[in-house]
């Protein structure tokens, strides 16, 4: 693996995680390099969301190793992980209904000084500007997703964990999310994406990790994707 001279920003080794007594991850290994967009692909229940939540420190029972920018995260609570510059956008979006759009945007505290400014965030998602005084609960699904992504861009986090950002959205909104992800990549963010929609994933990602039964079973570089499509289809059962 001569091409891997470059140091990974995130490297996960032997990650295991449990919900109560039930073992969900059985030793997950993968890495994401600085400035890269990587995806976790796999069927429902493969452990993709649990992997993101474990990196974020939101799964209490976990072991193995998660190194971010040289720091071991495996024993850190989620508030400490966030302070190191990792941000999470959950699948259910997690918009706070008792807060208005502006309060939602301002909620995550700045962890570094070099995040996007509020103006830059609103330039990416002009809809949010118009809705800034609406309650979070009054937004459409697409607006909620933009808000969920927008609010973690201000904080200065370098690694964004996005859990199914295109789920349930109209194609025109998916296009907007795609442009946003590409823009963020060019702005230097490192992104780890969980996706069911690998057609979307193929247009934004540098590499894809395929998960099955709580493990990463394969890695496909995006340029090999066409060639390896049959094997990916078999993995995903599509």
């Amino acid at each position, binding site marked *: 693996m001569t091409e891997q001279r470059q140091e990974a920003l995130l490297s996960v080794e032997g990650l295991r995680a449990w919900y109560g007594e039930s073992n969900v991850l059985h030793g997950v290994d993968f890495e994401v390099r600085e400035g890269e967009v990587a995806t976790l692909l796999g069927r429902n229940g493969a452990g993709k969301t649990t992997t993101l939540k474990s990196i974020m420190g939101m799964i209490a029972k976990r072991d193995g190793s998660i190194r971010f920018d040289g720091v071991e995260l495996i024993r850190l609570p989620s*508030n400490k992980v966030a302070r190191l510059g990792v941000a999470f956008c959950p699948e259910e979006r997690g918009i706070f209904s008792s*807060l208005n759009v502006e309060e939602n945007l301002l909620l995550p505290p700045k962890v570094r000084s070099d995040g996007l400014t509020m103006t830059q965030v609103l330039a990416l998602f002009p809809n949010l500007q118009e809705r800034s005084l609406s309650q979070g609960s009054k937004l459409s699904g697409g607006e909620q997703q933009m808000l969920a992504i927008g609010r973690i861009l201000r904080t200065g986090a370098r690694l964004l964990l996005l859990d199914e950002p295109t789920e349930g959205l109209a194609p025109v909104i998916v296009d907007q999310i795609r442009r946003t992800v590409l823009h963020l990549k060019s702005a230097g963010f490192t992104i780890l994406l969980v996706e069911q929609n690998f057609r979307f994933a193929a247009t934004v990602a540098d590499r894809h990790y395929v998960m099955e039964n709580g493990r990463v079973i394969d890695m496909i570089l995006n340029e090999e994707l066409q060639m390896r499509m049959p094997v990916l289809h078999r993995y995903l059962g599509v």
Partner: protein
Amino acid sequence: MITILGVSTQALFGQLLIGLINGSFYALLSLGLALIFGLLNIINFAHGALYMMGAFCAYFLLTKAGIGYWGALVIAPLLVGIFGSAIERLMISRLYQLDHIYGLLLTFGIALVVEGLFRIEYGSTGMSYPVPASLAGGDNLGFMFLPRYRAWVIVGSLAVCLGTWFLIEKTRLGSYLRAATENPDLVRAFGINVPLMITMTYGFGVGLAAFCGVMAAPIYQVSPQMGSELIIVVFAVVVIGGMGSIMGAILTGFLLGLVEGLTKVFYPEAANTVIFILMAIVLMIRPAGLFGTQK
């Protein structure tokens, strides 16, 4: 003498004043309960005992340290707030993974222990606490006599209630609190120390109870059971107002104090039961309470 519906204005306004005073206490106490319930998901049965501790704190500060009312109004909530924070950290925090009923049982137990300890030392007779000299006396308003201390209780409580509302609904810190009430795991994943926030919220809620206890000391007797007498009514107030809303807790508190006062004038036999009758009616019509949101 002027009368309204056969009741002298003096008696009417006198009872309305008492109603507002009681309403102030209901508002301060149900506000703390609503805050704690929102974030910790426990019904704090120790609230009455902590209110009583606030009153005793004022009494001790005066008799043992010579610190008067205004000092006590600051120190007692701080001390009781610290005591509450310690209880949350050492005991209540162990129960968050369990059914809500355990939090209720634990805080009920804490209330019994605290009350019992005070009763061993002070029996059940009350001690009087003097009205501060700066608020002694009263003013004749023409239609009624208004004792200055009682006027202060209403204004002071209202100010603290509205200040708390502002803190929660209009500030950055309050937005953390509202967000953590909805989804503590996600707020924590944004880098906010939610466990610390929970401890501080419990401390703040019981600090409000202690503040209320100091306010009440010159009006009621300072006694070990003063909390358990009041808290039953406060729980009825909380049920009527609903758990969801800060402003709802404040409004319901003052409103029910007034209703109680009016009942004393026009149908005194029902004065002690009117709140419970209202509670039964509200439960039938709007089970989540007047300001609560259905879950």
